[in-house]
């Protein structure tokens, strides 16, 4: 054993910005920007004061939700929303599986890959509410516009995540199937599908509850469903009925979340 004097102190070297002066300048700059940005926000404290009162009534409505007096509207909205969610999820899955496969670099030829990526980009770049406004203008008020909106949004979401999952598969398994002389369809069925299926099922369930939540939002711009009921209730200052609607939405989303985590464990 030799007695080399090893250093007894060690610090992690800065990884991103090596120059300490530049680093501190950036920190200071960020702080100054934050202060200035907050300063430009105009707050009308009088209106906040008035709003508090309305907010308090809203909270009271939550505490004493009224399920009964508008039950017909609520139940009709719920059924509409659930129908919209279910049909849009199913239609979305049917359309997005082929697009997802086409958008996977390791399965699709270049032109098809770019086409499918373009469809995904288009679907993802438009927010649900904007699509809903457009489709309500085209197809009129009601759940059909809502169904189309959610289907369109589902395609972007599912195809993109499915394509990324396919690109991440274990290539060795695909290579082994290719080596048997399998055709392209057989390769997808035997090497890709078993690897991505559990995650695809998880994503579909996740999208189902996103679609339900979104159905409440797009209802506000006229696409039918529970959102329309909620909007009407708020317009009429019936905060107790609005509270009931929100509680039901929360309960359904929680139930979907709970059951989907169970199903996901089971399909592993």
């Amino acid at each position, binding site marked *: 054993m030799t007695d080399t004097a090893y250093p007894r102190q060690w610090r992690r070297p800065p990884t991103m910005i090596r120059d300490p002066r530049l680093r501190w300048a950036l920190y200071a700059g960020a702080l100054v920007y934050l202060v200035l940005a907050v300063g430009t926000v105009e707050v009308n404290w009088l209106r906040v004061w008035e709003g508090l009162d309305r907010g308090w009534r809203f909270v009271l409505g939550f505490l004493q939700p009224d399920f009964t007096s508008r039950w017909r509207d609520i139940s009709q909205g719920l059924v509409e929303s659930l129908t919209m969610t279910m049909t849009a999820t199913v239609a979305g899955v049917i359309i997005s599986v082929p697009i997802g496969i086409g958008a996977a670099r390791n399965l699709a030829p270049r032109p098809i890959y770019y086409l499918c990526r373009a469809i995904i980009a288009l679907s993802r770049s438009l927010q649900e509410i904007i699509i809903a406004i457009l489709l309500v203008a085209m197809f009129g008020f009601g759940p059909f516009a809502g169904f189309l909106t959610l289907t369109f949004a589902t395609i972007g979401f599912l195809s993109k995540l499915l394509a990324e999952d396919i690109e991440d598969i274990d290539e060795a398994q695909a290579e*082994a199937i290719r080596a*048997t002389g*399998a*055709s392209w369809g057989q390769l997808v069925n035997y090497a890709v599908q078993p690897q991505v299926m559990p995650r695809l099922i998880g994503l579909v369930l996740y999208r189902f509850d996103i679609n339900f939540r979104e159905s409440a939002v797009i209802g506000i711009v006229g696409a039918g469903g529970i959102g329309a009921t909620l909007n009407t209730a708020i317009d009429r200052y019936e905060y107790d009925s609005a509270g009931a609607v929100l509680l039901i939405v929360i309960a359904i989303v929680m139930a979907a979340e709970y059951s989907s985590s169970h199903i996901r464990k089971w399909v592993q």
Partner: protein
Amino acid sequence: MLTVDALTKTYKTGDKALRSVSFTVPKGQVVGLIGPSGAGKSTLIRCVNRLVEPSEGRVLLNDLDITALPAAGLRRARRRIGMIFQEYALVERLTVMENVLSGRLGYVGFWRSFLRRFGGDDIANAFRLLDRVGLMAHADKRADALSGGQRQRVGIARALAQDPELLLVDEPTASLDPKTSRQIMRLIVEICDERGLPAIINIHDVVLAQQFAQRIIGLKAGEVVFDGPPTALDESVLTRIYGEEDWTAMRRASEEDDAAERDAAERMAGMV
């Protein structure tokens, strides 16, 4: 019979993986392909069934020029070439039986394979092969429920289900313990012997290669630097392939492995 003629592979990056490799494997011969990592062993066997597209040269399987085939013809040719992989490459979430039957994919149509409705002959043959590799009882288990040695046996059964005229074997023992490695190598060699199958076995364990192959081809930087019987593989040849190393020590360590295996086998026999 397999003929590899002046095979050259240059990757897009400019790396020359193979430089004009030529050899012929007659029916029933088991060839051990050895060489250091990066010598092009893996590329070479993948060029035979064109999982990797060769840049120049030809590969002939019983007078059929595989390198000249269009896509559909290539799929038909691949059915005749069984392949066994490093790390098994089974489809983990499919059952053992589905994995074995996937060896028939080149012979059945899409819908038949999609609905898993394989013909009676295919199914009987798959069971026969599972019985041959000693996994009859595991047919309905998922592939990821098996141990390493068992998985490689499934891999062997899958390759044989193709009813191949040639076996390509890529590092079959890379992730197995010494005892299981010997069992797997023994099984592969026995099966090649039973069926008169030619095989190219890519293997980095020189001792194992010498023990089981009838002929050794040594590859270094994409070139054949040795081609001969295992007995001719002496220290000077190994140095030519791999560079300077203490070969005697390696042999001795491997003999100890062998002795330990025999010892364990005797003790097991004593217990029964």
